[in-house]
Structures are given as C-alpha cells and as structure tokens.
C-alpha cells in the first residue's frame, strides 16, 4: 500500500531495495529495476554490477558504489552518480556511461571523429539513426576500440549532446 510507505530523505544515502516488493520508500527504484533498465535499454549485462551496490540520495538521484556497504549515512558522496529515475524517462549520467558504457550493445550511436568532437563540445547535430529514440550512448573509435563519450538524446533526426556544461571541451 503506497500510503504505508515512507518518503525519501534528501540528505541521506539509502540503499535501493532488492525488488519493487521490498520497497519501503515511495517511488524509490529497486536494484532489480535499475539492472533491468541497463540491460533492456543498453544491453549491459546485470553481472557487470555484481560487486556494486546502488543508493539513492536526493529524489531519484541514484549512485553506484563499489566499496563495503555502510549503513545509511549523511555523507557528501558515495561512489558516483549513475542514473536519474524520478522522471518519465530514466537518464544515465555522462560519467556512468564513460565508465560502464563499453559493456553496452544497444542504443549506442557511433560517431565520426568530427561528430565526436562536436558532441564533446556540447553541440546538437543532425544525424541518421534507425534505432529507438530517447537517451543513447554516443561513442567513437579510439585506437581501434569503441569508447563511450557520453549521453545523447535522440529526437526528430537530431542528436542532442547531454554533456554537462562543466565537462564540455573543445578538442
């Protein structure tokens, strides 16, 4: 029953429940749902995160942590932010995609050198893409291997760069 559930405490890290049925905080994503999202959307195998735990601090801001699990704590940061969940479409972070996006097999748009440079500078660009619309992983070739650059939003034949202002670079 939703009205039995507690509300999120914004200043505190709380571990995600294993499944939606284990949820004690209203609207909180479960570990299962997060792993399903990464697998369904990007083809990232759930095993990738076997040694990581997921936490919420701030409404819908999900953090991925690779260390020993502390109890819920009022600290500044725990691992890195990885996902925004309390909006219509979940959105991974640039830093998460750079770290774990190489495991992705779906919804990855491969950019040319020139396109990659524009993307890193935060520019939107017209682009052909015959896959799903929405949040994609933009990648380019580095020394013969695909390397994720960040998150793009593909809508109406346009790829919008979601690189945060502080991370944009003229390369």
């Amino acid at each position, binding site marked *: 029953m939703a009205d039995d559930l507690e509300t999120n405490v914004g200043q505190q890290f709380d571990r995600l429940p294993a499944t939606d049925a284990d949820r004690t905080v209203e609207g909180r994503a479960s570990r299962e749902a997060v792993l399903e999202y990464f697998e369904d959307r990007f083809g990232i195998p759930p095993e990738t995160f076997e040694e990581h735990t997921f936490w919420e601090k701030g409404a819908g801001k999900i953090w991925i942590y690779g*260390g020993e699990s*502390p109890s819920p*704590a009022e600290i500044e940061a725990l691992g890195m932010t990885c996902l925004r969940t309390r909006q219509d479409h979940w959105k991974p972070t640039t*830093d998460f995609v750079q*770290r774990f996006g190489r495991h992705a097999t779906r919804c990855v748009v491969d950019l040319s050198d020139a396109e990659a440079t524009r993307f890193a500078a935060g520019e939107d660009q017209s682009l052909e893409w015959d896959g799903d619309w929405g949040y994609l992983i933009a990648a380019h070739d*580095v020394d013969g291997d695909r390397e994720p*650059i960040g998150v793009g939003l593909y809508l109406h034949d346009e790829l919008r760069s979601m690189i945060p202002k502080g991370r944009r*670079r003229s*390369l």
Partner: protein
Amino acid sequence: MEPLERYRPIVDDFEAFRAACERPLGIAVRVNTIKASVERAIATLEHDGIAYEQAAWNPRVLRLETDSPGSTWASFHGFVHTQEEVSAVPPVVLDPEPGETVFDACAAPGGKATQLAALMADRGTVVANDSNLGRLSALRFNAERLGATSLAVTHQDARNFSFAPLAVDQFDHALVDAPCSCEGTIRKNPTTLEDWSEDHVHSVAGIQKGILRRAVQATCTGGTVVYSTCTFAPEENEAVVQHVLDAEDCRVVDVDLDPNLEYAPGVTEWNDETYDSSLERALRIYPHHNDTGGFFVAKLEVGA
C-alpha cells in the same frame, strides 16, 4: 625565494636546488587505470598528437609536451589526470590492496584519493575527507570524471574525524597529505613564498600534528599511515612526525620505491632540535633531484 635560504644547511647541492626552483615546471599526468591501461592512454595521447615521456620511476606517470593537457581526448575520457609528478609518490608509498579501507584525511581536490582508488582496482573504500566544501566539489568532479566508484566522500575537520556516518570503525591505512606552506610548489606558482612567515609555518604545523595524530588513532594495529607535504620546512615535516611518535604508538618504517626516483633522507637535526634517528627513513624530494616539485614523505606503521 628568500625563505629557501634557511635550507642551505640541509640541502645537498644548494645552488642546483635554487636554480631548479627558478625554472618553471613541466606538465605531468597520471594514467587513471580505473578507465584505461597505460597503453590505451598513450595511444589516445598519440592520436591527440601530444608528445610524452614516461617518468623513469613510474610508467603510469607521463610528462607531456603541451600547455593544455585538459583539452585532449585522453583527459576528456578520464584516461589521464593532470597531477604534479611527485604528488603521485605518497599513494605509491602507501601501497594499498584492493578491498581495503583507506582514509584520505585531506583529500581535495582528489588526485591522490583517485590514485589510491586506482591502486585498489576501485575495490574497497577510500574515505575521501576534506574540511573545505568548495574544494570537496572539485574532488567530486574529479572522482566522477575518473570513474571511481569506491570513494565515500566526507566533510569533516580531520583533527577530530568521527566514524559516526560510516559503517567502518577502523582503517587499514591512512594518508595525511597535509595542508602546508607549499614551498615545494614554487615552480608551479612563483608567488607561493610571498606570504611566507615563520609564524605561518608554526601555526600550520600545529594543524598537521592534530590531523596526523587522529589518522594514527583511526588506523588499525599493523596498518600504515603515510604523511606527506609539499614543503621543505622540518617544522612541518620531521617535527610533526616526531610529535606523533612521542604521542601515539607508531614507528617510522622504510619506504620501498623504484630506485629511479632520487631523494634525500629525512633530517634528524634542525636549529636547536633533534629528531629520532628513524626519521632518516623519510624521503625529502627536492626539485633538482628529478626535475619536479618538492615533497616530503614519511611512512609509519601503527602499534607495532
């Protein structure tokens, strides 16, 4: 530059030391092995058209021929982190293992905390603490860009650090890279010594003693604590370690480093004071030794 004159009695080849302090410092980066191998980082720099040279003492440290190391794909991807070459020494001296719990008492802006995480293969916990909120945001920015998932970031005065918000109650290791008078950074910032005073040296030494004592107390028996500064003043270096040797159960141990890194031993006499002979095991890295900035590093074992 005048305050450096006081070190004439303890610095070997003082004229070479003075001359090195007047030369500007080159750009160095550390390969972030959380995201890329040394080979991949180098291949990316080559693609960027940037010439590099590996540091003789550490293949993960690269000297670059560029004025803007941040405007490279290698940096954008978080394959490399711009960091003064010698500031990569303390985490190597600490030598943590994957899965351990490490306290970085003065962690911002995060170069050493993320290096510790990389040395631990991003497994375990680095409690990255700093008392300055503005600098903590720089730490968090760097940690996320470098893809570290094993950092727990806390905002406390390290002198009375409390475990209350954490699950751990003891650390395997601690790094105290203490706030200092920064004399060793003169090559990077030529105005460093403009506000130098002996009073400032003594006041910062008091803070350093408080932080190092708390770090030793927070570390388990048999654990290691590395104390480092980027300054030459014995008041902030050997005297601080001496204070903690007297006050806590710990001892100075030998440092095992690549022989290509040149350094002088810690001093045991300064002005009217003498320090324990074990302080010779500490490292004094001077700018003319390896063409870097200056650093002091001491390794302590707790409760042995």
